[in-house]
């Protein structure tokens, strides 16, 4: 290259040309990075046999254990606990898988893999998107496997509502993975994440109406019951569970129970449940996008 070719001036045209030359010569690396990060989550999942066994076995175990064990103690309009607990089991599957996949953010940082991505010419949000799509897809497919199982056992029937259930599971998978990512990104130890899991994520599930109904406040309700009601009502996961419950309880979904049977506890309408769930998805995605732009202390380790 001659000296003349290397001469640049401040004129807009030549500056523009020089600017284009200065751009990284890597094309489509945003898409390929997101795909790589998502695909890697899958490869890692299937190469860790314990995770696969736990992912398949745990929800079935919980469903059978709690469903049968608490059957006699549960009273809700004649509904048995296995039926009541089914939407909660789906929420649990999605939540646990989301937790375990987002822990990989901390592992990636400790193993040095993340540093490698941080010094590559890709925007940081690609990391969030890749991890959430990958982790969310694992949670979603796992939930679908449980859908197939409940269809086979007759606990869920074939109906148009099934499509809604699948859509709600997709939203829940992505939103909860994004939420887990938000907690995992700033952390530099998995122990810290377990503390968050115990203090925030599991209580979110317990207070979502998944395990026991949301108590309706009445004139004679104590402070505790009112507080519990509003706590559960403000929990976005209550609306994800409510979405599933509405569709699973719908007579068109196989007539597991009628809506009159849920009159004894508070349940938001299906429309409200969908709206809040979608807003929750958007908020967690925006939160994950914003948090990933901030340097974490673990970046420099």
């Amino acid at each position, binding site marked *: *290259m001659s*000296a003349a070719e*290397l*001469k*640049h*001036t*401040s004129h807009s045209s030549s*500056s523009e040309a*020089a*600017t*284009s*030359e*200065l*751009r*990284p*010569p*890597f*094309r*489509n*690396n945003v898409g*390929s*990075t997101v*795909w*790589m990060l998502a695909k*890697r989550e899958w*490869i*890692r999942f299937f*190469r*860790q046999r314990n995770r696969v066994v736990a992912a398949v076995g745990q929800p079935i175990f919980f469903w059978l254990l709690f469903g049968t064990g608490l059957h006699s103690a549960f009273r809700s309009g004649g509904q048995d606990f296995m039926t009541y607990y089914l939407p909660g089991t789906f929420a649990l599957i999605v939540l646990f898988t989301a937790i375990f996949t987002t822990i990989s953010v901390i592992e990636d940082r400790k*193993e*040095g*893999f993340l*540093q*490698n*991505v*941080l*010094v*590559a*010419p*890709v*925007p*940081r*949000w690609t990391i969030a998107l890749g991890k959430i799509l990958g982790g969310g897809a694992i949670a979603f497919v796992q939930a679908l496997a449980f859908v197939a199982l409940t269809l086979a056992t007759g606990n869920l029937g074939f109906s148009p509502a099934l499509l809604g259930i699948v859509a709600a599971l997709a939203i829940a998978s992505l939103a909860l993975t994004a939420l887990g990512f938000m907690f995992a990104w700033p952390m530099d130890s998995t122990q810290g994440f377990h503390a968050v899991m115990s203090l925030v994520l599991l209580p979110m599930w317990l207070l979502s109406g998944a395990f026991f109904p949301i108590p309706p406040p009445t004139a004679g309700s104590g402070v505790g019951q009112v507080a519990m009601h509003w706590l559960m009502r403000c929990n976005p996961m209550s609306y994800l569970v409510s979405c599933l419950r509405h569709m699973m309880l719908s007579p068109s979904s196989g007539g597991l129970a009628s809506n009159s049977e849920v009159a004894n506890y508070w349940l938001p309408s299906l429309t409200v449940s969908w709206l809040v769930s979608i807003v929750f998805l958007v908020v967690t995605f925006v939160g994950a996008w914003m948090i990933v*732009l901030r*340097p974490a202390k673990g*970046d*420099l*380790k």
Partner: protein
Amino acid sequence: MWQPRVHAPVTNATSGREGHSAVGETTCDVIADHLAHYFPQQTYRSNEVTLSTTLPALVASSIRYRYDASHALDGLDLSVASGDIFALLGPNGSGKTTLFRLISTLAMIQEGEISVFGHSVRKQRAAVRSLLGVVFQNPSLDPKLTVEENIRCQAALYGISGQDLRKRIQAVSEQLGLEERLATPTEKLSGGLKRRAELAKGILHQPKLLLLDEPSTGLDPASRLDLWHAIQQLRTESGVTVLLTTHLLEEADKADRIAILDRGAVVAEGPPAELRASLGNQVLSIRSTNMNAVIAWLEEHSVPCQKLSDQILVSIPNAMDIVAPLSKQMGDLIQSITLGQPSLEDVFIAKTGHRFWKYDASVSA
């Protein structure tokens, strides 16, 4: 085959955001001043920049970086010529890794300016990242993936795919002797092979500047030799500039040039042989039961010396000439006198006044 291109800086200054294509938005004034500092014979002006193809690979000027109350880098200046294997030598805590993080864009520059082939690290992060290959001290391989899968992950970060990717994987695996290991999970590789796989990732996109942070850490002597052979071969075959950090004196000795860092600043810089020669051709190391008496004798005879905690160093031309009179007059106090060629540690001691590994050993000259 794609080759990273080096261009002169352009002139429109706009701000860039982390992670986005913050390129083409520079700062000729900063970089022009920057280059003029190191290459005063050339003229750099903000509205008309003429650069030769021999742009330095890296220029760092007046870099200061603080961690809370302590200075990790304290006014560091450095220039690395294109095509060199350049070693940053310094004990732990000298600022090597901090400088490495600043160059690799992992940490934000607090004060000063760094440019990579004329591109500002502060303002053209995406452009700089595209020119860099980075191999960290800690492994960055995914242990659950095979060597090839790890390389493919790296390729995705740079948008390399298809036939081009296959060719590159073949080329780097041949170059680094990994052809037989591509299907092996990285958790099953030896330390030396892991380092090679890291190197393969680092050079896959054909960077112009390869950063290696303590590349020999955790390797046995044979693997170290092996790695150095690979680095030198890379430079010869690909023309890549290599900047590595090390605390191993023998490793630094293999570089074309070294910069010795101490407490966040460069205390000496040049080819290893030249740095050693600056101390003369001989170094005397004297151990004595009464060091103060020996130092008094040396001062009386106008012989400059340095006192360490356990010995006295004399690094002057023809140092051997003082051995006979010293032995004759101070023989009772002398435990041993060792005569040798100056080492890089001697250079370090001469420049800093303390041993490479011991900050508390003060020197009286």
